[in-house]
């Protein structure tokens, strides 16, 4: 089964999802970045983090 050895990675993904849903963490205006309030740039950054994380897990778990 492919599932067992990948459990650790799936936990990482789950923690990332919790971070994304933790609204009080990012519902603030400061610090702003190039004029964008924190609320906006942080969530856009999370898009990139999520993509990078998925890519890393893909390469770590893909069978050769």
């Amino acid at each position, binding site marked *: *089964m*492919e599932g067992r050895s990948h459990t650790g990675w*799936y936990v990482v*993904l*789950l923690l*990332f*999802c919790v971070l*994304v*849903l*933790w*609204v*009080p963490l990012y*519902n*603030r*205006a400061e610090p*702003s970045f*190039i*004029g*964008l*309030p924190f*609320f*906006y740039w942080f*969530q*856009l950054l*999370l*898009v*990139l983090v*999520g*993509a990078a994380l*998925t*890519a890393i*897990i*893909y390469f770590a778990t*893909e069978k050769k």
Partner: protein
Amino acid sequence: MAEVNWTILSIFVVLFGFITWLGFVSARWRRGDLDMLHEWGLGGRRFGTVVAWFLIGGDLYTAYTFVAVPALAYGAGAVAFFAVPYTILIYPLLFIAFPRMWQVCHRHGYITAADFVRGRFGNRWLALAITLSGLVATLPYIALQLVGLEVIIGGMGISGTGWVSEVPLIIAFVILAAFTYTSGLRAPASIAIVKDLLIYLTAFAAIIVIPVELGGFGKIFAAVPSAKLLLATPPANSFGSYSAYATLALGSALALFLYPHSMTGILSANSAHAVRRNAAMLPAYSLMLGLLTLLGFFVIAAGIDKLPEFSPGFAQFKANFAAPAILLWAFPSWFVGIAFAAIGIGALVPAAIMSIASANLYTRNIHREFINPAISGRDEAQIAKWVSLIVKFGALVFVLFLPLQYAIQLQLLGGIWIIQTFPAVILGLFTRKLNDWALLCGWAVGTVLGTWMAAVNNFSATYPLTIGGWGFPGYAALYTVILNFLVALVLTPVFAAMASKPPVDETTAADYVH
């Protein structure tokens, strides 16, 4: 309304002409026998990573999204940004669950989620429930795509009274219907490539040019009223806007890949690996959607809604006019033509895939299951082609004759209905332990209660849930699917005890391994 802008219209028509031609010649692309349902309705499962990326991206991020999300930012402010966490959360789900889905569907020739549930649980009534949820959730969604198109047509200054005003929409509809009928899923796949390149061009031009014209993001956000800038701090004893924001994001994310058109897009990929790769590559679309959401704030900062030349548009289309208006305001006509064509064509791609997905569902899970089990492969494909026409015609009638509010309310209900298939479809990928009749009961409870929650709450997406004196205002779809799962869990031992035969399952553990 303002006069017709001929430059915009010419470029729009030329690009539309090009994708019409492309739609028809796609029938010959990666040639297959279009008289077979899996060829017409899934493109022969032949699309590699890159084409699948364009197809799924063009399928999920619809024209209506590109119009409605900036409109929500313009009208309601920060809450519109839930589209960003929503489209972040869909990819871990895609990455973990859907390679298994692709694999088992490939092994058994399933082309719909209901096919899978039928095979996994051996219960035709549970499969019928999944089919009905899929059909009723998709139909208003197609209608909304035509609404997106209507806003764009209005933005070009085309207006008229009565019948005449609807002629452009009817022309676009006829084009859509014709190329879907002849080319099946290959048409939206090839068109999606053109359309997505145009959309990326538009999004990046808008996000660079408009802030420069407005004096930078700092100035733009300084002009946004503080009530719209951030989510409201929750009142005492309630999670207020926080739980609403988080549950909207999570519930929408759980629902998205259950829609029949999402399933069709994913199953058209040529391998489970292509699906996994796309989970890392598709967030590019989320980034673009996030950037386009900011257009709503640009409208506020530029005060465009106060300008006399845009007031008829805002009067007719309300907040939905925000995105077209800012493009008209900021760009020369030739570029607006490209941008409008991108959004307009962006309506046709998902509308085509949705109608194909509905046709696949009807043909496989209603016609072959309940009406004519002995149907030949050729007849199956022919019926699907006709159903795709009927479905689109229904959506057109809906848009032409019923108030827009109905389509929006039905689409909201659609999210609540489709998420109820989660326990059977997604959990079913990992376990056969839940009893099929228990799942059906859970589905019924979730569907009825979710509909009731939306109805008593004046068709607002969030329901003011209170538990033990604490308020958890949140997305009715998420709350009801949790209840749905609990009902299935509790009733499983009950039904298992009553059952006289062991549970059936035509799939094996090895079928899911990719």
